[in-house]
Every structure is written in structure tokens, then in C-alpha cells.
């Protein structure tokens, strides 16, 4: 018994040596699969499965009494189309996103250009502009809530220059504006740093050559700087557009969607419907809408890149 066993093993080993199964590419592939497995399983469980489920739940509605889901077909989508609040929510979301993206990107680029000048102390100022990124979001928002009151610090500063400020968070327009500004000041440092890195990568010779040819400051900016940093503009605008649709904590703390519904953006409305009113099915339908908007905007920007991104890495 033992002898044949041994013979078998020798035979197997000889065969393996002749044509080893675990070749280097095979071993590599195994290691590859092992290394990506946590991320892959996680994606399946916490991204793809919920994405499928959100569509499934959007066809159901939560029955509070029975604590179960009931199939309702397209009722949630019909409700979405007929929802009298929807017009205001979508307008508010669009105004908020456009305002935030425009203000954030222009301010980020302007600050980056300012800090890219040959000036002593720019590192110090970079730290100052960047510091809100590192302050806890809710703490930051609470402070601004206090500063934006009728008799708060913002109006105090305005009073110094003789302007009487409004009650920022109580007016419909000023509330929306306030949430945008609070969010931009909090996060613009991130885009500023990315722009600064891009600006520092633009070859100096280009500017020197253009200057010899008599190009003015604006021409140099429009014809050299913008095309050269266009990949970064694309990246930051995608990040900022998607980020603007995710703003939740600031609104929950500053305005709770008010006054009226002026700051009720889609994410906040989704939260209210799903978790405050327990319309989980309707919340799921709103989530599907949010997903479609984000996907469409990302795709659009990605398509546009061929048109205005100068070179691709």
C-alpha cells in the first residue's frame, strides 16, 4: 500500500515537472484575483446589489402598519411626475448646482493663479485657503449658522462698511446663496490645490515664446493656460458637479430645506420622503432619478472632453 502510494506521488511529481500546472502567468492570475477579491465582493454587495434593489424598491411602497413592502407597479413614478413639489425641487437643485459649480471653479482657478505668482508667503496663504477642507463639516456649518443670523458676525462685518445685511437664512434667495457660499468656502481649497499643481506643470517656454510674439496677458491665459490645464478642468468639474448634487449635511443644519422649499434639493427631498415620512418606495424612485441625473451629467462631460480637452494623458 505504502509503496504504491509513494510510486503514485513520484509519478505525479514527474508529470507536474514535465508540464507544471502552476505556470507563472497562472500563478500571477491567481494572486490578481485574490488581491482584488475584497473590492470585488464589496462592490457586488454594497454597490451593484443596492443599485438593483433601488430599482426594485421603486416599484414597491412601504406599508407602515404591516412593516412590509407591497408591489405598486409604476405608482411611485406616476406620483413623481404629478408631485407638485417636484418642479420647485428640481429648479432649486439646478440653481444650487449651477451656482455652486460656477462659483467654486472660478474661485478655485483665480486663487490658484494668485498663488502661482512669484510672491513670498504663498505657501502660508495656501494653507489658510485650504484649512476649511480640514475642518469637520458639521462644525463648520454650525459656525456659519451662527454667523449668518440677523445679528451675527457676517452682518457685523457688513455693518463696519455701512451695509445693513439681511437675515440671510430666512429669505428664499439669500438662503440658497448662503448655502452655496458656505459650501464653496469649505471645499474650494481642494480644487485650488489641483489647479495649482496643473499650473505648475505648464512649461514656462510657452509663455516666453508667446510674449516674444507680443501676446498679452489675456491671450496667454486663454490660448496657453486654459488648454494646458484642460484635463484638470475636466476632472475638477466632474468632481464638483457630482459633489454639488450630494450636498446634504449643510442643508440639514442650516435651513432644513427652507424657507418654504427654497433650499430643498433633490437629496434632501429624498431623505425627507424616505426617512422622515417613511415613504421608502417613493424615496427609492427619487434615488433612481438622482442616479439618472448624475449618470447623464457625467456622460455629457466625458463626451465633451474631446471638444475642449487639449491633450489626454
Amino acid at each position, binding site marked *: 500500500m505504502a509503496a504504491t502510494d509513494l510510486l503514485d506521488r513520484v509519478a505525479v511529481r514527474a508529470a507536474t515537472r514535465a508540464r507544471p500546472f502552476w505556470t507563472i502567468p497562472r*500563478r*500571477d*492570475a491567481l*494572486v*490578481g*484575483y485574490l*488581491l*482584488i477579491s*475584497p*473590492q470585488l*465582493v*464589496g*462592490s457586488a454587495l*454594497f*454597490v*451593484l446589489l*443596492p*443599485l438593483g*434593489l*433601488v430599482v426594485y*424598491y421603486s416599484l414597491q411602497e412601504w406599508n407602515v402598519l404591516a412593516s412590509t413592502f407591497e408591489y405598486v407597479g409604476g405608482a411611485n413614478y406616476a406620483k413623481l411626475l404629478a408631485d407638485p413639489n417636484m418642479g420647485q425641487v428640481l429648479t432649486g437643485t439646478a440653481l444650487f448646482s449651477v451656482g455652486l459649480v460656477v462659483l467654486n471653479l472660478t474661485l478655485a482657478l483665480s486663487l490658484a493663479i494668485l498663488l502661482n*505668482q512669484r*510672491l513670498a*508667503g504663498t505657501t502660508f496663504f495656501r494653507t489658510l*485657503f485650504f*484649512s*476649511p477642507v480640514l*475642518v*469637520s*463639516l*458639521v*462644525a*463648520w456649518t*454650525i*459656525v*456659519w449658522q*451662527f454667523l449668518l443670523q440677523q445679528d*451675527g*458676525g457676517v452682518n457685523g*462685518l457688513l*455693518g*463696519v462698511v455701512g451695509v445693513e445685511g439681511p437675515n440671510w437664512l430666512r429669505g428664499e434667495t439669500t438662503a440658497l446663496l448662503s448655502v452655496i457660499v458656505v459650501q464653496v*468656502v469649505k471645499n474650494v481649497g481642494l480644487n485650488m490645490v*489641483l489647479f*495649482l499643481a496643473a499650473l505648475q*506643470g505648464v512649461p514656462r517656454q510657452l509663455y516666453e515664446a508667446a510674449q516674444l510674439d507680443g501676446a498679452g496677458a489675456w491671450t496667454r491665459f486663454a490660448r496657453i493656460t486654459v488648454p494646458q490645464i*484642460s484635463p484638470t*478642468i*475636466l476632472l475638477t468639474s466632474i468632481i464638483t458637479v457630482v459633489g454639488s448634487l*450630494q450636498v*446634504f*449635511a449643510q442643508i*440639514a*443644519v442650516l435651513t432644513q430645506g427652507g424657507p418654504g422649499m427654497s433650499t430643498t434639493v433633490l*437629496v434632501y427631498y429624498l*431623505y425627507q420622503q*424616505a*426617512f422622515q415620512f417613511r415613504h421608502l418606495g417613493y424615496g427609492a424612485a427619487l*434615488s433612481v432619478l*438622482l442616479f439618472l441625473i448624475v449618470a447623464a451629467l457625467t456622460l455629457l462631460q466625458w463626451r465633451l472632453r474631446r471638444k475642449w480637452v487639449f491633450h489626454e494623458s
Partner: protein
Amino acid sequence: MSRKLRLGLYALLCVLCVPFVFPTWWMVTSSVKPISDIFAFPPALVPSRFDFSTYGRVFELQPFGQQYLNSLYIAAVVTAGTMAVAAMAGYAFARIRFPGQNVLFLVVLVGLLIPSEVTIVPLFQMFHTAGLTDTHWPLILVPILGAPSVLATFIMRQFFITLPGELEEAARVDGLGRFGTFFRVALPLSRSALGAVAIFTFLHSWNLYLEPIVFLSTPSKFTLPQALTQFVDAYGSPLWNVQLSAATMTALPILVVFVLAQRQFIEGLAHTGLKG
């Protein structure tokens, strides 16, 4: 650059700085002001005298120490977990060839496209069914394995792609296998990218707000952002002085640590995959 222009630029920078610096300065100084100073109009830039009594009240009104610990340990676990998951997957996607690689990478990348708000309803249902609501599990598992870690994986992949192939060949000639090459050669070289990922992930977890208020209902399990909004009187109006002390304790230590580490952060950020 002329002297005049230089002075003008400095003045501009100083004015622009105000909204970035004043709120933090005001939060920290107000937390040690007597209450009459907080409501002084126009606002006082420095406290007229120091009053630390509200710091004590923070801990009387809520289990703030416990909540601080919750936020700290959740952020630490999430950061360590994300670094591990992202480094492994990023390395494999960048440097190893295996069948189905591109398709699997696209599957993972879907997570980048999906804001976590989109999946909050089904995730709530899933954890509810598993009996894990009002626990910290959703706040730990979803960030490490779900959509938030995909960005980290992407950053790590972009970094590992730039590593010169000769390094790996040399490692192989020296007899290191794939795992050995990953742990002993690639990983130590990725310190700057890993540092950026770590800081990103920590801040993301530390700032999480929607998920805690959806998943948690017991005050002793709350995380800091959620706890901060709970310092209100019987009518729901904020207790400003207490809230500002709690906010200072939440924000200041992180701010100080990261400002000290900012070189690592900003350079890591600029030199990894986030650069266009």
C-alpha cells in the same frame, strides 16, 4: 514685479482670506468666551476673559466622550481597512495581467459613478433585514468595501501604473514572488499615495452625516457630526455656547494634525491619480 503690484496682491490675498479663516478663529475663541461675549455685536475677536465652563456642560448634556470615541475608532478602522483593500486591488489592476481584468475594473468603477445617497434606501433595508441598524457595522463595512473605497482603489492604481517595470523584474530575479514584490517593493514605494488615501478616507468617515442619522438612533452610539446638532434646548433652539465648544473639540485636533501633515497631503494629492 513692482512694489505697488506686490502690495496690492498681498492686500487682495488678505481680504480673500477672511471668509476662510474667520469662522474657524471665531469658533475656537467663542468656545472660551463668556456667553455675553458670544452675542456681542459687532462680534468680539478675542475673549474679554476666559470661561471654560461650557466644555464641562458638553459632557453633561450628552455622552460626548463615548461619541468622540465612536467617531475616532470608526474612522481609524475605516482608514486602515480602505488602505488595505485599495492598495491590494489597485496593485492588481495596475501591474498583474489576468483574464477579465478590464471588465472587472469597469465593474468596480461603477462605484465612482454612484453617489452614496442613491443607494441609501436599499442599504438601509439590507442592514435592517440583517438586524444591523443602530450598530456601527453599516458605517464601517460600506465605506471600506463599497463605493467610497473605489476612489481610493483608483488613486492607488494610477500610482502603481507609474512604477517602473524594472523594479519588479529586479525583485523577481532576486527570487521574490508576486506577494513578495507587492509587500516588499511596491507597497513601501507607495507611501505618498497611501498617505493621501489615508487622509481622504479619515476625513470622509469623520464627516459622514447622512449615514449616521439614517442608521443610528441611540445617543450613546452617535458619531460626532450627529451629536453636534443635538445640543439644543427644550424648544429646539441651539445652545450656542455648548455647541461651539463641542464643535471646537471636534474640529481643532484634526485641523492641527492635518495642517502639520499638509505637505504630505497636498503633494500626495497632486501627484497621484487626481492629477489630470
